[in-house]
């Protein structure tokens, strides 16, 4: 009896300590974000003296100012436009390519696939200088199209790999049935393969959307003119120009981070699955 209560209290203490440890780390994870939002609700005068987490009179007009004056409204729409078009491009190209790699026989198939996979290995620092020169020659630098094409290319290899692995495991009987019913190859891709691949497509969409939204370096080297910039580059430019306008900067940061946080919370199942599966594949 005595022994069991001893083990009981010991277990409770251990659990308590573990929770304490986990919670303290969790707080450090969330706290900077709360501080960011809190700072965005203060004014230029109070932000340097007021260390409260809940400002007494929150100044929501910072968001209006950042959206209008800081131009974050425009950058926000730019980011949305780039993210949507890049993700759309990646989904169309990578699912077609992955389906072809998985189902068809054509000369040079293995070589092509290896080339796509090798592209995954090349680190970005080794490639962005030639990319810059190439885009210059093609007159695609400082254009939305140039950026979108580059970003589609960045996301392609991993997406093709994920989708091909899925298609390889998918039973062929359904496609055979569709073919007997007179479906064309493209029709099978659209009516059979894509709907079945929905769970993988969700991972592809979420991961690429996050990476485009958060992308910085390519946007930095491609865009010179402000009206074309996505949020990340615009934030850095804003910070460089108005170094002390912290409330507006924090409002801009909140505008940038909020969509990501919302998407993350809604899609966390797919994101966590994607990370763990990606790791096991690697």
């Amino acid at each position, binding site marked *: 009896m005595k022994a069991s209560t001893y083990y009981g209290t010991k277990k409770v203490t251990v659990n308590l300590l573990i929770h304490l440890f986990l919670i303290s780390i969790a707080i450090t*994870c969330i706290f900077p974000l709360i501080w960011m939002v809190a700072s965005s609700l203060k004014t230029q005068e109070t932000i*340097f003296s007021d260390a409260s987490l809940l400002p007494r009179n929150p100044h929501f007009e910072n968001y209006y100012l950042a959206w209008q004056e800081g131009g974050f409204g425009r950058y926000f729409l730019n980011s949305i436009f780039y993210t949507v078009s890049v993700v759309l491009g990646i989904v169309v190209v990578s699912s077609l390519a992955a389906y072809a790699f998985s189902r068809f026989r054509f000369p040079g198939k293995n070589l092509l696939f290896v080339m796509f996979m090798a592209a995954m290995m090349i*680190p970005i*620092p080794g490639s*962005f200088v030639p990319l810059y020169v190439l885009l210059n020659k093609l007159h695609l630098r400082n254009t939305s199209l140039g950026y979108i094409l580059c970003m589609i290319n960045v996301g392609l290899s991993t997406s093709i790999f994920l989708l091909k692995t899925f298609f390889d495991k998918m039973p062929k009987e359904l496609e055979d049935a569709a073919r007997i019913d007179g479906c064309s190859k493209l029709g099978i891709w659209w009516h059979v393969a894509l709907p079945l691949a929905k769970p993988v497509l969700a991972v592809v969409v979420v991961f690429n959307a*996050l990476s485009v*939204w958060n992308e910085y370096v390519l946007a930095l080297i491609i865009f010179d003119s402000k009206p074309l910039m996505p949020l990340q580059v615009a934030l850095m430019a804003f*910070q460089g120009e108005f170094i002390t306008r912290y409330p507006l900067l924090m409002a801009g940061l909140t505008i940038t981070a909020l969509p990501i946080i919302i998407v993350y919370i809604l899609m966390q199942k797919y994101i*966590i699955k994607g990370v763990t599966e990606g790791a096991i594949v690697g």
Partner: protein
Amino acid sequence: MWQAGYITLIALTFQNVLAFLLAWACDREIRLKNFYRVIFFLPPVLSEVVVGLVWQWILDGHYGLLNHWLMHLGLANFARNWLSDPSTALTTVAIVHSWKGFGWGFLIFLAGLQTIPRQLYEAARVDGANSWVCFRKITIPLMVPVAILVAILTVLGTMQAFVLIIAMTGGGPAYHTQVPVLRILASMRGSSRFGYACAQGISFGVILMAISFVQYRFSRKARYN
């Protein structure tokens, strides 16, 4: 290069040990497990620009929250210009980098820990092993391949990290947080020496690929043993 190596070293040790401890703490019948998992992976999904600028504001030398708190706790001598003091800038950047990155390691370690069959632990318990022996003789040996994978990802990710550094210090003070990628960007945009920048980029890329190749061979060896 040295700076990138230093950040990588901190990321490899501090960040991954933290990630492993958290994963190990989460790998049991515990309430709020999913909640922790969601929270710990929050920093990695945020962009480096956002993370860098928020931390820069917290660590600001004059008005930053950290110094404010240190003053209030009576530790005013510890308060300093974290990001523009050459003696602390690099370590501060490395710690923020670890803050942003440990969620990856955590998720991968947790996934790895959950593949260890529970029967192994039960069998060891029956044979009279205590928690520490279980941990040392079962958990650690089975986690070696996962740890190597996390190490590869950490090294590759950290050597290429630079957006966070641009957002926090811009490479300063006096190049104390300069990393290879920043140098490449500087030769390209600052002085328009494209050939030189390209050569830097390719040699750096080759170094990275060599590192990952060595680690890959090493991990295959470890797996066979």
